[in-house]
Structures are given as C-alpha cells and as structure tokens.
C-alpha cells in the first residue's frame, strides 16, 4: 500500500462516518419537517430534539475533515470539484447555514411561533444539503469533472438525470438511517408508540431508497457505461451486503436489541459509500485523474497519516466518552438554562 491510497482511504472513511452521522442528522430534520401539524407532530419532534442536540456539532465535523483532507492531500481534485460544482456546493452550504440557524433558534425559542419557523428553516436546510451533496457525488461519479479551475460545465455537470437521482438517493438515505436511529432512541426512552412510528418510516424510506438505487443504476447504465460496469462488477458484494443489512433493519427495528438495529442501519450505508469508492478506484476524478497523479508530495502525505493516527488517539476516547455518557443518560438538555424551567426541578445539592 502506498501513502496516497491510504490517505484516500481515510478520506472515504471520514465520508462514511459523515454519511452515517451527519447525513442522518439531516434525515432527522426531514422527519421534523414532515411530522405534521403542531399537535400531531409534537411527540416525534420532542424525540428528535432530544436525540439530535447533544451530538450535533460532533457529527457535523466529518464533512469539514473530508474537505480539509481533500485540499491537503489532493489539492487539484479539490480545486476542480469545488470550482466546477460551485452552484450545488454553494446551495449545500446554504442548507448547512440554514440548518444551523434553525438549530440555534429552536434551542432556545420559547415562543411557539419562533419554534415553528425554526422547524421550517431546519427542515428546508435538511433537504437542500444532502440533495446538493448527492448531486456533487453524481457529477464526480459520471466523470463530469475535468481537472482545472471551473473547467467542467457549471450546469450540466450536476443538472443531469444521474446526478439528480443520486441527490434524491442521498436524501432517502438520510431519512432512512435517521428513522432507524430514532426508532432505537424511542425504545431507549420507553416510548413504544414512537418506536413503531419511526419503524414504519424507516421501512418507507428504505424502500424508497432501494427503488432510487435501482433507478440510479439504470440511469448510470445509459449515462456512463464504464462506471456502471465498475459499480456492478467490483461493487456487487458491497451492494449485496447493503441489501441484506437493509432487510435486517426492517426485521430488527420492532425488537428490543436496539444497538443491532443502529449497527445494521449504519453498516448498510457504509457499504454503499464503499461500493462507490471501490468502483472509482484508482480514479479521483473518473477517468482523468488517479489517486497517484493527484496526490500531494510525500512529506505532506506522511504527516497526514501521522496526524490521522494522532487524531484517532485524541478523538476516539473522547467520542467513546461522549456516547457512553449519553447512553447512560448522564447527558441531557439542561432545563434550568435552556428552556423555560419546569416545575419538577431536582432538589438542591451543591
């Protein structure tokens, strides 16, 4: 293995984690948006609020890490993608900011009207970002990004059937994994009604995703035959794994062993991301730039790897601590400062 490939692998890993966490958060925003009127949607929304807030920023950072790794390790790829895909990526960014604004507002908006507005902002952002990021993936996948400063077509590179379908698929993926996580979360809070509610949504979104996946493949067949062959010939075990895990979540989501459900949901998404990566290898930009040709100098790659190991040592324990405390119920919204105080506050204990 040479360092450039390892760095590319780390990038795909970060992307996988982003798909399993960050994109899932956008999915939660989608369910927030579609939960219905204020009364009907209150219970699911309260669960979503509770599930998403403590880990929000942590999930979000994976995307930044992908960007930074890309411009440090594969600068010309980064420059080519960002400049040709200016429009969808600027919209993805818009969604991120909208979502953050909705998040910040809803966190403290005591008044119902403000909360409602925040929910809409949050929801709109939650659709825009995964969709636009998905179209960008579609543009890369179909080889529409040549090397150079805005060298590709700024519109047709992403405004084409395959890319748009990949965008929709990304939205469906987010909705699916988040519904899986939320059904597990509902179980943890002892809310069987909500568990069923999100299980039904997980199945609906999973089936929609499956259908979209098939349509993406068909579209790819017409659009970029060479890439289609690579996806199918090299990626089939991963696609199969993804299918099996999808079915597994359907079966498990009504049960009691919720960590399995989460794992199966995340695993299915990870398999899809890796199917894409495997199909593209060794190209960063199909079919013009390879990992080797597009990589940074050896010293930079070496330091990126050293730092990745250091990052693992720093971040993994902290993440484990966060999730461990969270799962033990040691973490939670602090009602006295972030919401209007409720009456049954804990007793004095300084």
């Amino acid at each position, binding site marked *: 293995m040479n360092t450039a490939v390892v760095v590319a692998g780390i990038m795909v890993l970060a992307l996988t984690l982003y798909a399993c966490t960050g994109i899932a958060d956008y999915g939660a925003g989608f369910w927030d948006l579609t939960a219905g009127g204020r009364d009907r949607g209150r219970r699911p929304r*309260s669960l979503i609020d509770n599930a998403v807030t*403590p880990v929000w*920023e942590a999930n*979000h*950072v994976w995307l*930044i*890490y992908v960007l*930074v790794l890309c*411009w*440090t*390790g594969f*600068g010309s790829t*980064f*420059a080519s993608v*960002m*400049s040709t895909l200016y*429009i969808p990526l*600027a919209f993805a*960014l*818009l969604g*991120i*900011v909208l*979502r*953050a*604004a909705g998040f*910040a*507002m809803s*966190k*403290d908006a*005591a008044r119902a009207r403000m909360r409602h507005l925040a929910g809409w902002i949050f929801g709109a952002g939650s659709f825009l970002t995964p969709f636009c990021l998905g179209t960008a993936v579609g543009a890369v996948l179909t080889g529409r990004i040549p090397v150079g400063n*805005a060298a590709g077509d*700024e519109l047709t590179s992403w405004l084409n059937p395959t890319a748009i379908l990949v965008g929709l698929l990304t939205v469906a993926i987010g909705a699916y994994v988040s519904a899986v996580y939320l059904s597990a979360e509902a179980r943890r*809070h*002892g809310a069987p009604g*909500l568990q069923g509610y999100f299980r039904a949504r997980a199945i609906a979104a999973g089936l929609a995703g499956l259908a979209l996946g098939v349509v993406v493949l068909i579209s790819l067949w017409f659009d970029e035959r060479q890439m289609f062959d690579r996806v199918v010939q090299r990626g089939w075990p991963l696609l199969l794994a993804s299918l099996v895990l999808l079915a597994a979540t359907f079966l498990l989501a009504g049960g009691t062993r919720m960590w399995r459900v989460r794992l199966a949901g995340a695993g299915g998404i990870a398999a899809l991301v890796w199917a894409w990566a495997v199909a593209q290898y060794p190209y960063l930009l199909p079919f013009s730039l390879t990992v080797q040709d597009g990589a*940074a*100098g050896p010293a*930079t790659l070496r*330091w*990126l790897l050293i*730092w990745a190991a*250091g990052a693992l040592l*720093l*971040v993994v324990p902290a993440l484990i*601590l966060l999730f461990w*405390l*969270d799962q033990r119920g040691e*973490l939670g*919204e*602090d*009602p*006295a*400062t972030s919401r209007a*105080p*409720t009456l049954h*506050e*804990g007793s*004095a*204990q*300084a």
Partner: protein
Amino acid sequence: MVESVDADLLAAPAQLLPAREQMALTLMFHIVFVPFGIALPTMMLIANFKGLRRNDPVALTLARRWSHAAGLTFAVGAASGTVLSFEMGLLWPGLTGRFGEVFGLPFAIEGVLFFLEAILVAIYIYGWRRLQPWTHFWLGLPIPFVAIGGAFSIISANAWMNMPAGFTIDENNQITNVDPIAAIFNDALPYELGHFLVAAYMAAGFTVASIYVVGWLKDRRDRYHRLGVLIPLTIATVLTPVQFVVGDLTAVAVFEDQPAKFAAMEVVTDSGTHQAEVLFGRYDSATNTVEGGISIPGLNSWLAGGSVDTYVPGLDQVPPENRPSNVTVVHWAFDIMVGVGTVLLLLAFWFFIAYWRRRDVPGNRLFLWFAASAGVLTYIAVEAGWIVTEVGRQPWIVYNIMRTEEAVTNTDAGTLWISFSLIALLYLSLAIGTITVLRAMSRRWRRTDRTDDDLAVYGPRPAVEEGAER
C-alpha cells in the same frame, strides 16, 4: 472558458471583486465568534472552580450560563467556519489547488482539535445535571487548551500566507521539497499567534464584562453581577498592557518581514530616515502622496527601529502594481486598532487604581459607561487588525508568490454576486437570530434569578418526558 491570449496580465478578472467581498464578509463574521470559542471556556471554568471551592452557587450559576452561551456561539462559529472551509475551494481554487499540500496540514490539525472541542463542550454543557461536580469540572478543563491548539493551527495557516515557507518552486514552476512542518512554523507565526490570542481573551473578556456592567449601571448590584464583571474584566484589563507590548513587537516584526504592508499601514510614501508618524489622512495612489492627517515628526522611524535614524522603506520602493490596492483602508484600520488599544489601556489603569482602593467594581458612572463600551471597542480593534493583515497583504494571496487574481475561481462573476448577496442576507438573519436568542436567554435568566435555578445547579435532571409540554 475562452482564454484571451493577449489580455493585460494585470487586469483583474470580474469575479475577483465579489469573491473578495464574500471572503471578507464571511471571515469578519466568523471572527466574531472565535474569541468566545477560545476564551469563554476559560472564564466559565474559573467561575466553576470558584463555585466548587467556595461552595458558591452564584459562581456556579455564572459558569453554567456562560457554558450555554459558549455552546450557542460555538454552534454558530462551527457553521460559519464550515462556510469558510467550502470557500477555500469555491472562491480560491488556485490557492488550495496549488498550495494545499503546503499549508493544508494545519487545517487538518484544526479540524481534529475543533472536533475534540465540540465533543468536550457537548459533554460539559449537557453534563451539568447528572455528572459529579468535580468530574464535570475536570472533563471541562482541557477545553481552553484544545481551543488554543485550534487557534494555533488556523493562525499558522494565515501566517503562512504572510510569510510563506516550506517549499521551493523549480524551474518548471512546480512546487517541490514540500515540508509542511516548516510551513507551520513560519516566521510570522510567533507574533501573529501571540498577538491574536491576547486579542481573543481581551475581546471575550471585555464583551462579557460589558454585559454585566450594563446590569450594574441599572443598579442590579448583587453578587451575581459583581462576579460577572470582575472575572472577565480582570482577565481583559491585565492583558491590555501586555497587548500593547505584543502589538508593538508585531509592528516591528511586520516592518522587517513585510515592508510593503508596513509602508501601507503607516502610509510611508517616500523611503528615508526620520519618518513621521501620520495619523489618518488620505492616500492618493496616483501621486503617491498623503493628504491631510496629523503628522508627528520622527515617531514612525523611532517606533520601527528604536531611533529616528531608522531607515523605513516607503511605497515608492514598491512597484505600483504590487502596492496594496487600498492603502487608505489599511492605514485607517491600523490607526483605529492602535487608537482602541490606547483607549483600553487607560481603562485598564483606571480599573486597577479604582479596584486597588475599593476592592469592588468601581462605582464611578463614567467608568461604568466606559467599561460598557469596551466590548464593542475591542471587537472594532480585532476587525481592524484583520483588515490590516489581509488587505495589507494585497495584491498577494501568498506574499510575493501568488497574486490574488491567480487564485480566484473561474466561476462566472454573476453567479458569485448572487451567492454573495444570498450569504449576506442569510448572515444578517443569522446575526439577528443569534442576538434574539441570546437576549431571550438573558431575559429568562433574569426572571428566574434567585428562584429554583440557583438552588439546583448540580442535581438530577428530570426524566425525559415523552411529549413534554412546550
């Protein structure tokens, strides 16, 4: 893209202006949240420590509220920082595409450190209710250090743009011998980092103090407001004289490293000794002269080299196409920063004397009005300082190596103007939203003052209610 073969090399592409405007707007927005991210955790931990050691519920309340404010500013800072990461490619593909391998590593370090900070902040904020008090404090303790690490890396990237290092350009105009560690520890890092960290603590300190000083002015003179003024104000005022010295060292270092920037910030038109210090005034680029302003003979040479005989190169030594495009802006920004620094120095000494005599928040209303405006003043200095650094480096994006117009995207200028307008609108509403939420927070805190809130800083939190009432 049609390449205009004989185009005037110096004619700036149409997309340069919107790209610069967008970068400047988003950076100047982001930087507002940065001092809070760096310094607020320190203040909240000091209050937390005081509260636990002295069994002081008021200090604990402050700590807890500051942690929530830190959480909010952290979230907005993270979102606006994400915008910047995208923009490094959306707006400046020429920079990241060519030099990403040289100066990208600190961004990778920063990404991880911010991630760590986000996790620790989340644990701290969401751990108030259930964690053991001292465990909670210890879990929060790494946050300020991680934040300083993040500032170190990002400032290192910026310092590299000012003093590029860690690579060579061969005869084929290719980058070789890349040494990312040499790039991180470039010559401008020590002074930029030192000066900026002090500025961040000052900005957050004066701003937080301002808020409680306003309460003090409204005769809310309880222990809560006393601590709320004294903790941040002590930090900020102690650092103010330090900043005066560090700022001076920075100016001397810029004089040696980046003569064109120094000439612009001091509007030195003609090279020579016995340079006068000119306050404000207007620079005319056509004739290379300054109109108006107040001139103090010899002072500039003396500040730069310790004697009026110091030779200071002027803008006349810089070829016109390499002069900062907006000398007047750089110069005014510099004078404003130094002016604010001087005014704050007065405030600091006033506070030291008054506190030494009364051991309390000074009661003098003039002092209080002065202190109440200190937060805004410091922020003006921070923004002005960044204008000196960034606009003063023009026309270079990488000093003496890459011009800004070589780095800008080839995306259509119209698209850029649209995205710039959208971002401007969005940021405006984000700013309004953030302020609204912070005010709503503080209003509600005031309502609940001395009620259930103070009693139960640590303690079990209520169970998650399914369908809680809103």
